[in-house]
């Protein structure tokens, strides 16, 4: 059983509320879409849900196999990607993957790495420092890292930004794949991306 509960969460800076009393029940296979105009607080909300920002009121609960996850446990089950989220740019694509893998105590063979890079259309780019990647390629390697360990909770803020048509298809395929494994939360202004979701929070 995998669940995400948002219980009356609010966020405010000084006296101004960015959002107030947000509630949601998200289950395995659900895709929660956060919609709203620029500056409506979508990114703040996704950061609050993912635990990157503290909420001003309310609570966020992650449940995996019937157990409520602690902040530390959540790190093992979460993937995150956003435009303001950066990998270690001096490192190559493979080194970035290796650092993540080392933190989980796993290692990949060369063959497995090549399959992964191929899937994200980064074949033969593994040994290039990602600071030399185009913005689209950087988005692909960030998506690869976010989905590397088949996370139960996947957070995607503007997931198709900077991507070409093949990249957008890749993201759609990733979201479809994620439905079988866990919960997806997407922040978007794109109408077609909003259609991937079965639950929506609209911020004004």
């Amino acid at each position: 059983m995998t669940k995400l509960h948002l219980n009356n969460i609010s966020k405010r800076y000084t006296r101004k509320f960015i959002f107030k009393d947000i509630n949601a029940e998200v289950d395995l296979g659900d895709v929660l879409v956060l919609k709203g105009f620029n500056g409506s607080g979508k990114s703040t909300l996704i950061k609050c849900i993912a635990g990157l920002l503290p909420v001003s009121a309310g609570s966020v609960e992650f449940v995996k196999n019937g157990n409520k996850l602690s902040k530390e446990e959540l790190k093992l089950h979460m993937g995150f990607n956003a435009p303001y989220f950066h990998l270690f740019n001096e490192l190559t694509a493979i080194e970035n993957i290796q650092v993540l893998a080392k933190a989980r105590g796993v290692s990949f063979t060369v063959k497995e790495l090549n399959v992964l890079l191929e899937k994200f259309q980064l074949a033969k780019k593994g040994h290039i420092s990602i600071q030399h990647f185009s913005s689209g390629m950087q988005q692909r390697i960030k998506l690869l890292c976010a989905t590397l360990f088949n996370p139960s909770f996947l957070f995607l803020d503007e997931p198709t930004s900077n991507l070409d048509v093949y990249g957008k298809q890749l993201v759609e395929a990733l979201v479809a794949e994620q439905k079988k494994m866990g919960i997806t939360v997407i922040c978007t202004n794109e109408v077609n991306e909003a259609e991937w979701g079965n639950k929506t929070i609209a911020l004004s």
Partner: protein
Amino acid sequence: MHYLNHLKSILLKEFYQERQGKYILNSMLMFSLLLIAVVVFPFTKSDIETETKNVLYWVIIYFSATTGLSNTFLKEAQKQTIFHLKLIYNSYVLFLGKTIFNFIFLMFSVGIITLVYTELFSFDFGSYTSIFVVILLTVIGISFSGTMLSALISQVMSHGSLYVIVGFPVLFPVFLLGINATEFIVTTGAFPSDLVGFIVVYDIISISLSMLVFEIIWDAS
């Protein structure tokens, strides 16, 4: 096991970044060698007394440490990798990993400084075992306090010029103890038990406070 994996991952990441950017090596070691050169040129060996040589030795280590350690968290803030680090690592292990990495580089840098300095100034430490213990314990204290200060400064402003100023009152006590302990060894040849005891106390306070304060700083970032 889970935290040990985090620690290994942080050290691997730091090693990769250092190999690529040579942040610490360039700032710490090159700055130290430059300082030694600046100190050597105006004086001849006979101009400087042993006490002065000893103080100069620690001044070079101080500037080397502050220059190198200030970048520890500043580079993460500048490269906007804070969220990435927060998503992967436990905050205590992250701090410990970065401190261990800084400790290794600082020890390496101090080793090079010591070799060059003793050669150029014909500076005889007397007991090398005693001086090694003093340096080791002092560098442990500097590494913990320095890494914590780097995290603090990275939240306050976007450049590290404040580091030397803020770092002075925090790091000064341990440097003063290092200077006195070295002088004791050089002049008497004996082991400075009392001073080493004080350095150990500084290290314990430094480790405890750094670990406590770091989580607050990290959560606020």
